[in-house]
């Protein structure tokens, strides 16, 4: 059975204020879903109900089909969660904290040491394994929290702004970890304010604002749906792009709407025709031997969509 997360009519009210309004969302399969929304949109509120930290005013959530509200113990067994940078008992060392997590989760004693070690390796904290967590910096604690969310090999991973407090290298490491998780068919539901991170690792995005879900779709669909029928892609080159190539050779390829030079080595190309055009485009540009180093979904496309959707509610 593929991993799944379901929010059914999920609603949270604080007094008369509605923090989350009847959210219906069903995610399944091995992929990463980005959960976007401005400050106060209700992301953390949603993720806390998903993990039984707070209780829905209405509605229910399911992890792998098990109701969180009815049986938190069984529902959370296959989930790894990291919400709002929790604190670890300060006198514990990472080894001890992860030992506690693994033990309570039922990781067999024989495997514990190995799993803890590799979890710490992944967050690059092996050198600190036997130092007390109490003296760690914010980012170091966050790394241990990430390791704690993954040490038992969860099939569903719920992360609330996992990159909070991390340095650039830490952020890159988190992305690498998430890509690894996707490879082994895990479902990741992750809130984030870093759009480049979302573009980089997420397959789908859900956008909420003021407790309301605005849309949920694949990243590719979202980008094409909101960009007047055009999808957009950013190409990076190892050297400056010859001016004639921009409008000439590249601009005249089939399906191309516009080509913009972002900087001497980066192009943004708007195109129609979905993934086929995109593949053909990248292939053709690669064959031009201009020094193409990467092609990626343009993050600012998501940013444009994000801003236009959010401000719409004003």
């Amino acid at each position, binding site marked *: 059975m593929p991993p799944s997360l379901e929010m059914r009519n999920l609603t949270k009210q604080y007094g008369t204020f509605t923090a989350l309004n009847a959210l219906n969302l069903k995610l399944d399969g091995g992929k990463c879903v980005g959960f976007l929304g401005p400050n106060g949109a209700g992301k953390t509120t949603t993720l806390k109900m998903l993990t039984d930290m707070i209780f829905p005013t209405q509605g229910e959530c399911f992890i792998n089909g098990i109701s969180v509200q009815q049986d938190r113990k069984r529902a959370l067994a296959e989930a790894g969660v990291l919400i709002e940078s929790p604190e670890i008992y300060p006198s514990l060392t990472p080894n001890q904290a992860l030992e506690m997590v693994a033990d309570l989760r039922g990781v067999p004693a024989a495997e514990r040491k190995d799993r803890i070690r590799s979890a710490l390796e992944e967050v690059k904290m092996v050198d600190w394994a036997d130092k007390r967590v109490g003296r760690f910096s914010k980012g170091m604690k966050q790394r241990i929290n990430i390791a704690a969310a*993954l040490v038992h090999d969860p099939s569903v991973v719920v992360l609330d702004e996992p990159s909070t407090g991390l340095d650039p290298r830490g952020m890159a490491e988190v992305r690498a970890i998430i890509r690894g998780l996707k490879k082994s068919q895990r479902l990741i539901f992750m809130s984030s304010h870093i759009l480049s991170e979302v573009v980089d690792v997420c397959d789908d995005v859900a956008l909420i604002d003021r407790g309301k879900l605005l849309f949920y779709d694949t990243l590719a669909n979202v980008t094409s749906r909101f960009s007047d029928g055009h999808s957009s892609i950013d190409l990076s080159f190892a050297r400056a792009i010859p001016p004639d190539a921009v409008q000439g050779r590249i601009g005249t390829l089939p399906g191309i709407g516009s080509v913009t030079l972002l900087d001497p080595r980066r192009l943004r190309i708007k195109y129609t025709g979905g993934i086929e055009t995109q593949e053909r485009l990248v292939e053709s540009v690669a064959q031009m031997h201009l020094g193409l180093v990467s092609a990626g979904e343009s993050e600012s496309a998501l940013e444009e969509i994000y801003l236009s959707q959010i401000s719409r509610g004003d």
Partner: protein
Amino acid sequence: MATATGAGLPIRPVSTPDTFQQITKLTRYQLYEYVRSRRFVAMLGIVAIIGAIMTALVGHYRGGLVSSNLAFYGSFWGGGAAFLVVLAAVIFGGDAIAGEFQNKTGYFLMGLPVRRTTIYVGKFFAAFLASVAMLGLYLLILLGNGAFYFGAGALPWQLPVSLLITLVYLAAVLGTTFLFSSLFKTSAYGFALTAVLFLIGFTILQALVVDLVHIEPWMVISYANSSIGNIFNPTVNWGLFGNITTTTTQVGRHSFVTVTTYTAGIAESIVIMLGYLIVTAVGGLYLFEREEFT
């Protein structure tokens, strides 16, 4: 490189231990956390100081204090243990639940597949055992003194019974501190309320009940603890009802003061303690099950 998260590797699911096992495990980790904490060391220091003062007192005055081993254990276990129970319960239990919110450590535990009850009960057992360690140290000092004055073998049979009553009292007091602790999300409030309540509040309440309502203050937990020492009395009351003693003293030419004192029976005090334990455990669990980690 093989990764923890098994990039590309199949998921190796684990099976969650049953609730009873989880409580045992959580108790162990919490206890470990207590033992390494500063407050544990501080409490050990306090007990050691109390023990030293006691040893010096007995050594200096002897006399009535060591007239019999019953008098000795009665005054030093009876007098000290109840106070230590309250102190340990406030120190280890006052913020047990509130601290999980304030320090955000509860958010770490809440991500785990454990019932809320497991967290509450595991913490309770850990606080209980940490407190028992304090009582144990005090008992050791006491036994050392006892052996010095009466010989190692001269232990009154009342002592183990009194120890048992002390443990029940500890459970009741801790249950109460846990209940109050789960009313707050700020450690300081938990500490303040339980400390004030146990160190003076209940004593005042007890006096008020006796003086104003003129009934046996059976509903006040501090009333019950007297049996920890009373058991060493030759005329101990084992019953379910307390003794009432009325003494009238002449204080002026025509004025008399009548003082009524109540002494809990042993069975009565145990019932009171268990009552407190059950009511506060049910109440505390009820609250904690409904508390939100907002």
